[in-house]
């Protein structure tokens, strides 16, 4: 942490960046995002096991882009999200200083190519807890899964916290806001919720960096991240592609192989 803060201070003092985005202490154990805009504020930044949020969600925001060049303290999931955003042309090389933190090690990166190289060295995988949850879902019968999700989704009130916390949900006009035609009903009733989560999952399939932010953001505790995780894992299994791994766009749903293997098309 010392080294990161030191470097952040340096960059701020030299005027190379306008702010550092990192974590600060919130209420209790919570860590909240923090923009240090002066060298003196850098000391408020903390980095510990309680820092979970994917900070990449902020860097595409108009307000942040307007600041100028910003440094981001980027944990692995944030790194993947930034790389995917670069591949999707939402961020340019050199627009950010990425202070990539992996355990004790810190690396300063500023381009998609450098991020790709950096991330290639690390294995990406779900943590044990999520793996177990997915396995549990998998073990259920189809009917049980239906009941499980209907139960879970019955609590959804379409607050869109899952959408808003996701770094990949940067669209200016979300499909949910599309009303000509009104594909997805606005109300948070059975069909409205099912369709919302189906669309959210399909939109993130092949783009989800598996940070799990959506699940953490849900105020009523619906494990919505399991949906995007399942889609992402199945894409990796079927096509070998992963979001947040390549500098050049490699989107599973706009590429194909003539011998893609499926068994269900009659």
């Amino acid at each position, binding site marked *: 942490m010392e080294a990161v803060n030191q470097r952040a201070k340096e960059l701020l003092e030299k005027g190379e960046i306008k702010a550092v985005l990192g974590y600060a202490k919130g209420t209790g154990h919570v860590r909240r995002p923090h923009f240090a805009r002066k060298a003196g504020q850098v000391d408020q930044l903390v980095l510990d096991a309680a820092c979970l949020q994917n900070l990449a969600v902020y860097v595409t925001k108009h307000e942040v882009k307007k600041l100028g060049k910003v440094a981001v303290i980027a944990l692995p999931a944030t790194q993947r999200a930034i790389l995917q955003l670069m591949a999707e042309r939402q961020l340019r090389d050199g627009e950010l200083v990425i202070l990539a933190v992996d355990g004790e090690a810190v690396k300063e990166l500023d381009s998609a190519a450098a991020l790709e190289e950096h991330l290639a060295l690390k294995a990406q995988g779900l943590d044990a807890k999520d793996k177990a949850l997915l396995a549990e879902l998998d073990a259920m019968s189809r009917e049980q899964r239906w009941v499980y999700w209907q139960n879970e989704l019955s609590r959804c009130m379409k607050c869109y916290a899952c959408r808003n916390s996701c770094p990949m949900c940067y669209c200016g006009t979300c499909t949910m806001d599309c009303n000509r035609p009104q594909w997805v009903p606005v109300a948070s009733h059975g069909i409205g919720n099912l369709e919302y989560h189906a669309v959210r999952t399909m939109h993130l399939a092949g783009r989800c960096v598996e940070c799990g932010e959506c699940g953490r953001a849900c105020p009523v505790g619906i494990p919505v991240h399991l949906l995007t995780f399942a889609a992402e894992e199945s894409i990796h299994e079927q096509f070998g592609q992963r979001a947040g791994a390549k500098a050049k766009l490699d989107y599973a749903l706009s590429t194909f192989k003539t011998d*893609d293997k499926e068994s269900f098309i*009659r």
Partner: protein
Amino acid sequence: MDEKFEPKITAFVCNWCTYAGADLTGTSRIKYQSNVRVLRVPCTGRIDYMMVLKALHKGADGVIVSGCHPNDCHYTSGNYHARRRWMVFKKMMEVMGVDMRRITFSWVSAAEGARWAQLVNEVTDQVRALGPYAEFRQIIGAGIE
């Protein structure tokens, strides 16, 4: 279950292969069950998964999605993109517990008139045997529209 249950089947087909194949079924005067309602789109690549969801939303008990066989797409590769989309969509629907026996994906070429009749009959019989899609109808019922 209602004894006189007749399933509602919605089919999304591409203009160049399956729609033309269904035309051939007609010109060959091959009979099939009349439950299906066909929606024509240019290519399977145009078939948004939202259309499938909307068909279920409107109370379809079964859905058919059909286009050109791999390699035969009028637009060279629309069907390959569609195939991938379906591979992901199917997986996701399964995770959410949607009954995938009600959604049939198939390739029917412009020369396969008999195959189209057979497909429609098979799907209609299968969905009739499954009965109305009660689970889905329940959540539609929960809607206040």
